[in-house]
């Protein structure tokens, strides 16, 4: 190992891995919650649904589309003033979180909306015919019935987030991306870049494996 990767400092490598995992985990959780709320609102305010409301839907839709379209690397830069405002710093793992969450929540919200649209309208009508409240419909019909789509969506989003953390790393957020760039690229130590890449690949495979497993378990169709 030491011969293949002569320049890799393992304690530094594991520390960076921890940072990447930390950034990914926090932003995945926040994206799941925020994206689900946004997606639900997008769905519920759309035409023919419980809270049909065109102005709200148009505004939400525009917001989602704008933040989904901005390239992530540019979004980080654009969000510097905002990040400084709430965190007082631009350096470190935490500083990457606002950009990560704002960048991926709208992306996930669209997936949530698509998942919710796949639910048979008849099932929602049946719940209404039983006298269900809107909150009951959300918690007991919409979310459980779309859960496989929500999980496979968050799997895709989580993988995108891992690569976003690497990008955030380049501008000072730490993690494997930062290590690969600073130690590997800048100092021409290709073995460091390669090792960081391998670890990122392993993280992605594990996420995909868990996501697929959970989706299969949940899907009773």
């Amino acid at each position: 190992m030491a011969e293949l990767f002569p320049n890799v400092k393992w304690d530094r490598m594991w520390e960076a891995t921890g940072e990447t995992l930390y950034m990914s985990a926090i932003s995945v959780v926040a994206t799941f919650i925020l994206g689900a709320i946004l997606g639900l609102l997008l769905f519920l305010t759309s035409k023919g649904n419980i809270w049909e409301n065109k102005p709200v839907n148009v505004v939400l839709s525009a917001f989602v589309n704008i933040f989904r379209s901005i390239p992530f690397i540019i979004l980080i830069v654009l969000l510097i003033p905002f990040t400084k405002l709430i965190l007082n710093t631009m350096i470190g793992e935490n500083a990457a979180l606002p950009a990560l969450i704002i960048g991926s929540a709208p992306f996930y919200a669209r997936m949530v909306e698509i998942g919710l649209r796949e639910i048979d309208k008849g099932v929602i009508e049946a719940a209404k015919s039983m006298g269900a409240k809107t909150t009951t419909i959300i918690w007991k019909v919409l979310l459980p019935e779309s859960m496989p789509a929500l999980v496979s969506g968050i799997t895709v989003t989580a993988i995108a987030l891992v690569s976003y953390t690497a990008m955030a790393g380049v501008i000072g957020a730490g993690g494997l991306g930062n290590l690969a760039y600073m130690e590997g690229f800048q100092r021409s130590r290709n073995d460091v870049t390669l090792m960081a890449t391998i670890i990122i690949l392993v993280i992605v495979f594990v996420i995909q494996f868990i996501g697929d497993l959970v989706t299969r378990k949940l899907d009773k169709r």
Partner: protein
Amino acid sequence: MITINKAKKIYSSKKGEVRAVDDVNLEVKEGEIFGVIGYSGAGKSTLIRMLNGLEIPTSGSVVVAGREVSRIKGAELRKARQEISMIFQHFNLLWSRTVAENIAFPLEIAGVSKAEREKRVKELITLVGLEGRGDAYPSQLSGGQKQRVGIARALANNPKVLLGDEATSALDPQTTDQILDLLVDINKRLGLTIVLITHEMHVIRKICHRVAVMEGGKIVETGPVLEVFKNPQQPITKRFVQQVTEPEETKETVDHLLSRYPHGRVVQLTFVGEGAEQPLISNLIREFPIMVNIVQGKISQTQNGSYGTLFIHLDGEESDLNRAIAFIGQHEVGVEVISNG
């Protein structure tokens, strides 16, 4: 139990107004199985959804079990819906829940305690004949079993009215009959008022006490099922009655017969109740010097009595034929000459 008074539902579309339900008056008595028949687009779907407030009439009133569902809103409407349950053509079960959990869903909505729910679900599973399938998921069930879950779910909160939205239209004929038998059984055992919409006269014939025929948003004919079978007034009603009384081949058989026997007449006889029990054909042959050839016959059972049709071919002297047809007419049997040979 149900009173619909001058209900109208008008949608405005780009092409102008669409009158889905147009000035409908209807009365359904307690404990009755009432059928609404019509082709798709006749407005029956909108009509039945007015009964549980899923559609609000543009004007007019709908009163179900003492509540004006066309006017109440919010919590009151939700409470009313627990007493007016619905079963659907495509069952509309939650695939993420097991059979038992699906049946428990309306009980959760009604705020029934967990222990109480489990007890009730067990009773319902037995009632609809799904013992041992409680832990299965809907995807593992056949269409008929899914509809049984739908029925159990609809009965969970002891409703006063059960609405059936094309409840058997997605099922094969044999399963349809099983589900219809179950509905009749529930109607008798629980005294439940049932309103169902369908496009199959078979469903009306088999389980309904009274029927309304809908066309273009209006109810064009209504009455006890046997009456409507015996004496359909509107052309659309006649067509629906034919669905049951005349197998599709009848017309072909009659045409074939007419071409083979250019003489004589093909006559359709209609028997209702006791009329069916007289030895009419024997008497006919004995009394008149004519040939009688039976083409096709069918007896259908309805909830208020039996109803039969018989196609016969008569041949002989012109005067004898006329007297024979007059003779049939005297015996409380409907007679219609299809075609002169």
